[in-house]
C-alpha cells in the first residue's frame, strides 16, 4: 500500500508538470491583460514539434526548445491578430486551439506510433531516501525540477521586481500605463510570447517525457484545464502549483485505481479531471469579490494607443 502511495504521488507530480508549465505560461499572459484561449493548440503544437525533433535523433533538450519555440510561434500569430489587428481575444484563442489541433494532427501523421526515450529520473541525495515522500518528490526527471524552479522564478519576478510590477500594472490599466509612457502593446506581446513558449514546453513534456510518444490530440483537454487553473488560482503562482498537482492526482488515479482496489468503469474514471475542473470553477467563481480583487482588471479587453 505504501508503495502504491509513493507511486501515486510520483505519478501525480509527473502528471501535474505539463499543467504547471502551461498554467504558469498562461498566468504571465493573463497578468498583462491578455487572455489566450489557445493553450490547447499551443501545447499540441509544442508536443509534436518536440517529439519530431527528438525522434529525428536530436537531444531531449533540443526537443524541449523546439516545443517552446513552436508554442511561441503560435502565440505570435495570436498576438499579431489580437494586439496589432485588434481581433477579439476569445475568438482568436479558440481559432488558435482549433488550428493547433489540425496542424499537429497534420504534421504528426508521419510520427504516429513511434516512441522515444524520455529524461532519466534524477535522485536528489538524502532527500530521496525519505520514506514515501522521498521517492515521490525527489526522484523525478529534470523537467519536473525545472517546473518548480520556474515557479520560484515567476513568483519572485512578479512580486519583487519592477518588471513584475509593470506587468501587473499593464494588466490592470493599460490606459494608465500608456499615459505614463509604457509601451503597452510591446509588453503584451512579450507576455503573450512567453506564455506561448511555456505552453509549448508543457506540450513537449507530454510527448517526450510523460508518454513518451506521439498520439493525435494527446493533450486531451489539459490546455483547457490549465486555463481553468489560472482562475482557480485567482492568478497567484503558488495556487497554480497546488491546482496542477491536484489535477495531476486525478489523472494518475485512473491508472492506479486498480492497484488501489477501486473498481469503477475506466470511462467514468476518465471523466474525473474534467468533472473536478467544473467543481473547482464553480467553487472559485461563486465569490465575485475574490475574482474582482485578483483578476487583472483589463483581462480580455482590447487596447489601442491613439
Amino acid at each position: 500500500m505504501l508503495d502504491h502511495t509513493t507511486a501515486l504521488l510520483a505519478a501525480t507530480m509527473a502528471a501535474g508538470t505539463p499543467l504547471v508549465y502551461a498554467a504558469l505560461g498562461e498566468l504571465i499572459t493573463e497578468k498583462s491583460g491578455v487572455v489566450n484561449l489557445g493553450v490547447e493548440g499551443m501545447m499540441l503544437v509544442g508536443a509534436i514539434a518536440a517529439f519530431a525533433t527528438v525522434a529525428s535523433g536530436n537531444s531531449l533538450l533540443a526537443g524541449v526548445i523546439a516545443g517552446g519555440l513552436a508554442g511561441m510561434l503560435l502565440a505570435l500569430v495570436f498576438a499579431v491578430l489580437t494586439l496589432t489587428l485588434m481581433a477579439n481575444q476569445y475568438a482568436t484563442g479558440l481559432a488558435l486551439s482549433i488550428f493547433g489541433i489540425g496542424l499537429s494532427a497534420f504534421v504528426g501523421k508521419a510520427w504516429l506510433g513511434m516512441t522515444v526515450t524520455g529524461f532519466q529520473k534524477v535522485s536528489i541525495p538524502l532527500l530521496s531516501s525519505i520514506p514515501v515522500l522521498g521517492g515521490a518528490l525527489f526522484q523525478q526527471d529534470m523537467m519536473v525540477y525545472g517546473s518548480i524552479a520556474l515557479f520560484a522564478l515567476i513568483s519572485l519576478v512578479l512580486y519583487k521586481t519592477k518588471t513584475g510590477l509593470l506587468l501587473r500594472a499593464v494588466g490592470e490599466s493599460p490606459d494608465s500605463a500608456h499615459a505614463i509612457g509604457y509601451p503597452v502593446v510591446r509588453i503584451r506581446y512579450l507576455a503573450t510570447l512567453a506564455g506561448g513558449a511555456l505552453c509549448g514546453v508543457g506540450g513537449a513534456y507530454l510527448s517526450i517525457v510523460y508518454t513518451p510518444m506521439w498520439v493525435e490530440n494527446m493533450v486531451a483537454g489539459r490546455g483547457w484545464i490549465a486555463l481553468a487553473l489560472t482562475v482557480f488560482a485567482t492568478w497567484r503562482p503558488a495556487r497554480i502549483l497546488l491546482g496542477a498537482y491536484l489535477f495531476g492526482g486525478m489523472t494518475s488515479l485512473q491508472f492506479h485505481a486498480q492497484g488501489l482496489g477501486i473498481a469503477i468503469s475506466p470511462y467514468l474514471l476518465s471523466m474525473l479531471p474534467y468533472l473536478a475542473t467544473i467543481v473547482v470553477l464553480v467553487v472559485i467563481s461563486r465569490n465575485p469579490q475574490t475574482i474582482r480583487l485578483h483578476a487583472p482588471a483589463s483581462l480580455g479587453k482590447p487596447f489601442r494607443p491613439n
Partner: protein
Amino acid sequence: MTFRLQLESRPVASRTMRYVAPVLAAALTLVTGLVLFYALGKSPVEAFKVFFVDPIKDLNGITEWLLKASPLCLIALGLAVGFRANVWNIGAEGQLTMGAAAAGALAVHFDGATGHWLLPAMLVAGLVAGAAWAGIAALLRSRFNANEILVTLMLTYIATFFLGYLVDGPLKDPNGQNFPQSILFGESALFPLLIEGTRLNASTLITLLAIPFVWVLMMRSFVGYQLRVSGLAQDAAVYAGFSRTKAIWMTLLLSGGLAGLAGVGEVAGPIGQLQPSVSPGYGFAAIIVAFVGRLHPVGIVLASLLMSLLYLGGESAQIALQLPNAITGLFQGLLLFFLLGTDVFVNYHLRLVRVSGGQK
C-alpha cells in the same frame, strides 16, 4: 522621408467590409492552401480540383455536400444567437453527443417498434438532452458565475466518455463481436431518405426550418433584440432591465437543443447506430461557421456550405493525393484566422503616414 502604414479607426464601421471580409478570408485560405500543396510537391491546379471540384461534381457529391452542411448550419445558428448575446457555448460537440446518445438509447430500447412515433420521440429526446447538457453550463454560469467556455468544454470531454461508456456497456450490441457500438437502428428509428440512392435524408428539413426561425428571432423579435443588447453592452442591458440570467438560459438551451437535434440527425441518418464517435468535430467547426457567417443566418448558410466542402475536400485529398485528412482542421483554423485578421478593416482603415512627419 519614410512612410509607414498605420491603422486608423473609422468614424463609423464599414458595412461593405463586413461582407467583404469573409470572402477575402476564404480567398486567402485558398491561396495559402494552394501554396501549401505546392510546397508538399502537389500540383496546385490538381489539388484545387481534387479539393473543391471533384467532391461535388455529381448528384451523389452534391447530396453529401448538403448532408454535411446541414448539421454545421443547424448548430451554428444556435451558437450565433448565443455569441451575439456574449454567451460562449464552445461545447456544442458535447451537446451533439448527448443528443445522439439520448436518441440512440430510445432507438435501441424500442428496437423493432413500428409506427411513426419513434423518430419524433428520438427528436424530442435529442433536443432535450442537448439542451439539458448546455443547461448545466447555464445553471453554473447564472448561479455561480462559472465561465461557460470552460464548463461547456469540460462537459464535452465528459459527454465523449459517457458515450464511450454506453456503447461499451449498457447499449453495446450483444452480437457485435465485442465492438464498442450499438445495434443498427431499425427502419422506424431512421430519417426517411429525400433522394433514393443517396444519404441525404429528412433531417435536412429541420435545418431548413431553423434558418427562418432563427432569422426572425435574431433580427426581428424583441427577445432577440434584448439578447443583442446584452451582448453588445451589458451595462445597457442592465440599465434597460433586460435579464442577464434569462439571456444565459435562453441562448444555452437553444444552442444546446439545436446541437442535440444535429446529433439525432447523425445517428438516425448516415451513421444509423451509436458509435464511440458520432461527429467529425461538427460542434467545433460550427463555431467557425458562425463567425465566418457573421453571426447572421444567411451568412451561416453560406459558411456551412463552405465548411462542408472543406470536409469533403479533405476526404478527397486523402484518397487522391495521399494527404492526411487532418488538413481539413488546418484549413478550418486558417479560415478563422484570416477572417479575424481581415475583420480589422471593418473598424479601421489603412493610411500612409510620414514617419519623420509631425515636426517641420
